[in-house]
């Protein structure tokens, strides 16, 4: 029986996986450090045939906006040699339908929702956070500050550390007893500024990175492939970029860093842990290989045990790792 077949056979019955390498982010505890990335796992149950929601430490939902969004015109996807360009445009059912229909379903299945939200302005963030606070089943919220595929907010917002701090404060003030994580865009000059802004605003964690801005041109049609021209790149190509940002942020703030971007197997997850990540998210890879989650869990487990360690956090490289380059600052290239 192929790996995929055995995974599929096991998935529906394998709910309630035992806690393995549990972690803490702010006031929230998670059974393991493996999350599903936002936009890659729907609202949590769509992949149930392949991955029981309880196998993941948390499922970051598709980003919810106050009102339902239809999203961008087609085409929305373009494959690249080592990744995927997307311009979905935050198509989602909207806050009220999410709370009424989607959230209870995932909770009933024993899944842990990490609710991703995006708003147009400060007041809308306040309103959404207050609504989420009314639901005790929501233990964690991810603020999507850096989506390149929408008009308002997006990179302009996130590029301002002050704005990050203000929005973080607005959300955290209304969710003091839940984990509030700020997801950052890599499409800025210095992501550590934004991370410090999030920390100063009271964030319990920083999530890095969102997709990397890119585009494609339709050769035959003689026009940009995507209606908005700009799209987001994910997948293996962006792993080295994500790894650097996680490394930098982990050395700039004291709060946990959740790493995401280009995980293709246990190797990338382990490197993220070595760079200082507290948890990792799997995204694009699940589209083609949902069995990857089990492989990552097994690979990390083996690597940790082989070294006589008891948790992947112990893999984190010490303060002097990379010190030769750190002293020169992030703007300088290593010799």
């Amino acid at each position, binding site marked *: 029986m192929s790996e995929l077949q055995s995974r599929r056979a096991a998935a529906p019955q394998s709910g309630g996986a035992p806690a393995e390498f549990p972690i803490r982010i702010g006031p929230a505890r998670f059974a393991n450090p493996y999350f599903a990335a936002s*936009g890659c796992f729907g609202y949590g149950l769509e*992949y149930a045939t392949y991955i029981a929601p309880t196998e993941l430490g948390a499922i970051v939902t598709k980003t919810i906006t106050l009102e339902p969004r*239809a999203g961008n015109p087609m085409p929305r996807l373009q494959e690249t040699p080592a990744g995927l360009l997307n311009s979905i445009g935050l198509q989602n059912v909207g806050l009220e339908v999410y709370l009424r229909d989607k959230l209870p379903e995932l909770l009933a299945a024993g899944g842990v929702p990490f609710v991703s939200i995006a708003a147009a302005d400060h007041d809308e963030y306040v309103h959404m956070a207050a609504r989420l606070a009314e639901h005790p089943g929501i233990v964690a919220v991810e603020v999507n500050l850096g989506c390149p595929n929408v008009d308002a907010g997006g990179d302009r917002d996130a590029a301002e550390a002050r704005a990050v701090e203000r929005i973080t404060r607005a959300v955290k003030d209304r969710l003091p007893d839940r984990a509030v994580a700020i997801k950052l865009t890599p499409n800025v000059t210095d992501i550590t500024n934004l991370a410090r802004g999030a920390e100063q605003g009271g964030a319990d964690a920083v999530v890095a990175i969102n997709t990397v801005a890119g585009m494609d041109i339709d050769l035959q049609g003689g026009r940009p492939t995507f209606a908005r021209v700009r799209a987001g790149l994910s997948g293996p190509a962006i792993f080295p970029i994500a790894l650097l940002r996680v490394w930098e942020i982990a050395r700039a703030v004291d709060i946990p860093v959740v790493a995401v971007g280009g995980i293709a197997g246990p190797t990338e997850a382990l490197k993220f842990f070595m760079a200082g990540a507290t948890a990792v998210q799997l995204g694009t890879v699940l589209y083609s290989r949902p069995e990857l989650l089990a492989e990552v869990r097994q690979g990390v487990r083996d690597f940790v045990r082989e070294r006589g360690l008891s948790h992947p956090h112990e893999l984190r490289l010490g303060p002097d790792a990379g010190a030769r380059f750190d002293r020169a600052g992030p703007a300088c290239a290593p010799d």
Partner: protein
Amino acid sequence: MSIHDEGDGWRSFMVKPVGPASRELAGLGPGAQVDVTPPLGNGFPGAADLAAGRLQPAARPTGARAAAPRLLLVGGGFGVAPLHFVARRLDALDAGSDYTILYGGRTARDVELEVLDGVRGAVLPSTDDGTLGFHGTCVDLAVEQVRRRGPGVAARTIVLACGSHAMMAALHAALRAHVAHVFVSLEAVMACGVGVCMGCVTPSVRGMVPICTEGPVFRSEDVFDVATEVQHV
């Protein structure tokens, strides 16, 4: 890529090599093992239902027998591949279904009639430049075919179409009002295949819906009579 034919213990697929994945698939040899996750979404209405004219919503007075439908299978280019599968299933019913396959291409070289080897129904090719068969598009030919048999037959004609988006839109515009049903098979680049990523959507009467789960086959009026909406924050 399309299901093409089936037999006792086997299924065949037609693959058009257009990129890395399809080229790899097309290059596989006997004995190669492939993980398949079928089926995604829906298909054309089943052969038995088609042959009996039995399609939802079926608003028929009690006791009335449905008149046997006329089936028009319209394929543009590679779109003819799944229609071959439909035709073989109709043939297997041995119900003597009244079906015609319209197969269109730009020029004679693009109309590979051997794709339709083995079907019992009539095959009418068309080419934009007239180098083979009907001179015009398969949509023009479909309109001519419907017109030729008169409104009585048109009212019990079911059209199954597969081809470019523009071709199916044109077919809908030209024929929907005159025939019983038009079913179209849409396609899009897909990532997840399970209705999660929203990368393969089509505008529809139910909003932007994934083609991988809600399709690929739709009633043409569900996807071509809607305005595309783009929401800006």
